[in-house]
């Protein structure tokens, strides 16, 4: 042992180092999560739940930076009501879960982030190959009425809808008609979250239309 570096000091300094790391703790998950747009927390079990008939899935990414750039971003925002709705830089990758059964692609799962009343809303939908919603899933939401929005009864209102249904209704102004306009809000005090969820699904479908379904149509 070096006489100028007593044992007590080493242990004290190591403890201090640990404390410094403890102090840095709150920042760590925030920084890492901010890198990717919206991913399923437990992809294996979530995919099985949202797409029960699937036997495999593949993850791919798309972004405005790689496809379409600023003009496409503006186009998507215009389709969402000309309000900056994406809250994400051009290079943020959107995670797409491609769903397979017996080697054949049968649909997709895609999630988006949307501003909610008390924090971010992470909303996923599973879609068939034609763009019809098969399941609706809220992965993240804050507030005392979360339980009301995560009830199957609320989620079922989205099943069977397509982008066409959302084009008849503007969740920013609350004006329009059709099945989306007829949806019931299970928590009347949480208006921001209710419209936020509708807006999230519309954003999700518009993004899927621009990046996935139109590309597929182009190939055919």
């Amino acid at each position, binding site marked *: 042992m070096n006489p100028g570096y007593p044992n007590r000091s080493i242990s004290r300094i190591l403890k201090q180092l640990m*404390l410094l790391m403890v102090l840095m703790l709150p920042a760590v998950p925030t920084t890492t999560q901010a890198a990717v747009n919206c991913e399923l927390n437990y992809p294996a079990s979530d995919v099985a739940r949202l797409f029960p008939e699937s036997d495999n899935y593949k993850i791919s990414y798309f972004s405005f930076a790689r496809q379409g750039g600023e003009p496409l971003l503006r186009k998507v925002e215009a389709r969402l009501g000309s309000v900056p709705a994406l809250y994400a830089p051009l290079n943020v990758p959107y995670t797409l879960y491609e769903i397979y059964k017996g080697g054949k692609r049968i649909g997709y799962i895609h999630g988006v982030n949307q501003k909610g009343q008390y924090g971010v809303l992470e909303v996923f939908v599973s879609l068939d190959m034609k763009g019809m919603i098969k399941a609706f899933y809220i992965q993240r939401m804050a507030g005392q009425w979360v339980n009301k929005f995560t009830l199957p009864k609320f989620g079922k209102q989205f099943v069977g809808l397509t982008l066409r249904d959302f084009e008849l209704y503007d969740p920013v102004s609350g004006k329009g008609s059709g099945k989306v306009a007829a949806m019931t809000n299970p928590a009347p005090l949480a208006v921001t979250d209710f419209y936020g969820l509708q807006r999230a699904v519309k954003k999700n479908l518009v993004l899927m239309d621009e990046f996935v379904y139109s590309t597929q149509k182009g190939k055919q």
Partner: protein
Amino acid sequence: MISRFQIASKNLLRKKSRTTLTLIGIMLSSWVLVSLLGFNRGYETALNRDIDNMGYQLMVMAKGCPYEAATMMLQGGAGLRYIEQTMVNSIAARPEVDKVTPILMQAFFDPDKGDGGGIAGYFGIDLATYPGMKPFFRFRQGGWFKNDTAAEAVMGYEAAELEQREVGDMIMVPEKNVPLKVVGILERTGTQDDGTIYVPLKTLQKISAIDKITTIGIKVKKDADITKLENSLYQLPDMQVVSFTQVKQTIMKLISTARMMVLSIAIIALLIAMIGVVNTILMSVMERIQEIGILKTMGAMPIDIFFLVWTETLILCSVGGIAGIGLAIVFARLSDILVRRILPYSPGGELVAIDIRLALLTLAVILGVGLLSGIYPAWKAGRVRPLDSIRSEG
């Protein structure tokens, strides 16, 4: 008239594969060297900034194993050790102390955060003293709280970005379901502050149903003896002291050992590359011995031949060095990510910092060592005797 530089370039291009391999060797060694020198400076700067950005040089907290503290934080703050707020005044009264600030750190379990839930960290701060400790904070939107009991929050840049919050929006404290109004969003600092949510101390105490604090931040007077103060604080019952100066020194000591090992590898790589240069140039000289003899019979002086061959070394080292430095700059971000994965603790911000001065310094080292290596082949070429070389078989 053809210049010496053009002749040297043409000579190198005669054996393209050999020249390319030598260039790759120089390029890789200069890449490693400049990245390492960049890390050397970048890490220290980032660590200094992280620690300076703490705003205080000493921190006092209740005694307990730091591992235990970490676990408690991860479990949602249950069982964290607290200290009486009266301790703040007793520490502030010491002659070495410039400013003190009480802090309450609380962690609440958010089941909707990350994989299987995560911890949302809140800092309860004193409006009268904490902002003075962080004069470098700049607000992107809004400002500090209205008063020390307001149900308000100030969010770090990334915390706000992640939750998509703007001034005027609300946030909900997990577990407690207490709404807070966002009144300020800070500019990005590149430190842990970016992920922090600040709440008035009294508000957080009320939310957590506790009237104590977890930490006291201490800013020491300019000429005060920090070690003396630290030792006197150690005499406080059940208290432990964290000195950021010491933490910094410890981290730098740990890093310097690893740094020396990598630097040794870089020097060995550089030496191997230079042996490659000597080999390439020497072989080139041997293959051209008759040409050199003819040049001499035509009136070329030994010094002309010396500089001609030396120019080849100069070209190899310049091109290889510049390419290596270019690669290091292009892949600095990647090196940064790799270093972060390897190191147990790395501060925020840029870890591999390569600027023009460092790039030029590295190039100078590569050129210096390269030109030294080129002396022998150039001298050997300069000494070639014309008649012997012309007589020798090609």
